């Protein structure tokens, strides 16, 4: 495992600050007595995909909600595109774990929603919505309501809604966790294909190690209670990433590395609980 660099300080493309899309410094968040995470530092470069992996309940969603400006932080600062985030800002869009589609809106209405909120004109909406519906492969389902389509298709719709506002920063909260394994794999590669067409900065939260390695330029492992960044792993796999990538020995090595980091954490947590009893 020596071959794998694991710098404890986040290593950034353009560490000078130029090209940094997301900068997080000393972030801490508490829900009452529960301290979710502390001293989180992140820098995400332009068009970089940063995977964040960690066990369920470690605060991944909370971190994304902070970065999206949805909830206040207790300590630290978040900067996106040079703007200090204290509330949701333009140029950033989120894809939600449970899709977050409006059930009373059709696929078309849901995809148009972000544009409508951004104040796009009717003509602009009529032009862009079909384009993004086609991009995620939902052509022909424009008039379907969310309950009429499968989970995978619902998340395609959620993705199109986020892409339609052409954000420079995409926040993905376990976007494929709620769909079946097969659909998940299809969606992963489609997302990679879409990203190749139109690269954006992406924070990709997942609890799947394989997915984290496949998607990310770097993988951040969250651990501990409260969580903090245990390790940052640089994923030096070439792009475009395809199904071939999954078969490369390097992919397996990286996956093992992330896995052992998470496992040692899981073990320790188990012992901590055991010791406490």
């Amino acid at each position, binding site marked *: 495992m020596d071959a794998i660099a694991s710098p404890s300080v986040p290593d950034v493309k353009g560490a000078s600050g130029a090209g940094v899309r997301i900068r997080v410094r000393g972030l801490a968040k508490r829900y009452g007595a529960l301290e979710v995470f502390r001293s989180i530092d992140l820098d995400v470069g332009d068009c970089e995909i940063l995977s964040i992996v960690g066990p369920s309940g470690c605060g991944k969603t909370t971190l994304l*909600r902070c970065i*999206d400006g*949805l909830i206040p932080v207790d300590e630290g600062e978040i900067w996106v595109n040079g703007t200090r985030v204290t509330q949701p800002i333009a140029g950033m869009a989120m894809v939600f774990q449970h899709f977050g589609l*409006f059930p*009373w*809106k059709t696929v078309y209405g849901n995809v148009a929603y972000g544009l409508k*909120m*951004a104040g796009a004109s009717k003509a602009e909406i009529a032009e862009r919505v079909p384009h993004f519906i086609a991009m995620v492969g939902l052509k022909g389902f424009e008039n379907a309501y969310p*309950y009429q389509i499968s989970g995978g298709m619902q998340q395609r719709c959620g993705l199109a809604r986020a892409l339609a506002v052409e954000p420079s920063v995409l926040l993905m909260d376990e976007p494929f966790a709620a769909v079946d394994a097969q659909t998940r794999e299809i969606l992963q590669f489609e997302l990679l294909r879409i990203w190749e067409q139109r690269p954006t900065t992406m924070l990709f939260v997942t609890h799947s190690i394989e997915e984290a390695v496949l998607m990310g330029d770097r993988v951040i492992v969250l651990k501990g209670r409260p969580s903090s960044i245990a390790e940052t792993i640089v994923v030096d796999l070439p792009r475009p990433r395809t199904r071939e990538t999954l078969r490369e020995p390097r992919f397996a090595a990286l996956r093992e590395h992330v896995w052992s980091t998470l496992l040692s954490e899981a073990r320790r947590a188990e012992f901590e609980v055991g010791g406490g009893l």
Partner: protein
Amino acid sequence: MTESLRRHAPLLLSLAAGTALWEIAGRRASAAFLVPLSETLVRLWEIAASGQLWEQFVSSAALFLTGFALALAIGMPLGMLLARMRVLRVALEPYIMILYATPMVALIPFILSLMGFGFAPKALVVFLFAVFPVLYNTIEGARSIKPELIEVARSFRSSEWKLWCDVMVPYTLPFAMTGVRQAIGRGLVGMVAAEFFLSATGLGQLIMTAGQNFDTGGVFAAILVIGLIGVGLMRVGLMLEQRFARWRD
């Protein structure tokens, strides 16, 4: 044709049986209590032909629609506002619950002494009968909205106004419509009660005068009209509810 006949057969049979029962019971009972359906229909025709029915119907409809429209215009927005503002809800909820549970007829003497016999106090009675189911169902509906969806709206930088237009209202409408349907029935009770106890007008007056004149056929004719209006309005309410709830699986 035969299929739809088979489907509706129980309903048609039941209606036929009810009609026959009314007719037979009416023929046997003293005319002071009950008259047969045929006689009721004849009286209804007479009242209609005299122009009286239409006149009183218009008077009642104006009363009902005023009170009912007020109940919707206040009940639905207030319900959503209370769902959205916790402080306000906690402060007002006990009063809403008490008033919802209070038989509104009990308030009529109070309204009479406060506002007299005019149109306004009567519309207020209809309003009070109708508003609470609307308010209550709107609050419950609006509160059941998933916080995640509010968060989606905030993430896409929705203004509060757009949050209402695009999220609160479309989500809450089907729930509110359940209350609206209940409010139709209660509003009609309020209408007749106001016409009985405040000043006698409309279909309520028709019942009262007929009663005073021992015109049992007239009484039943007016009751029949009110009942049919109620059934018709309920159907409209149900249709609207289904229309707004199309998105629910």
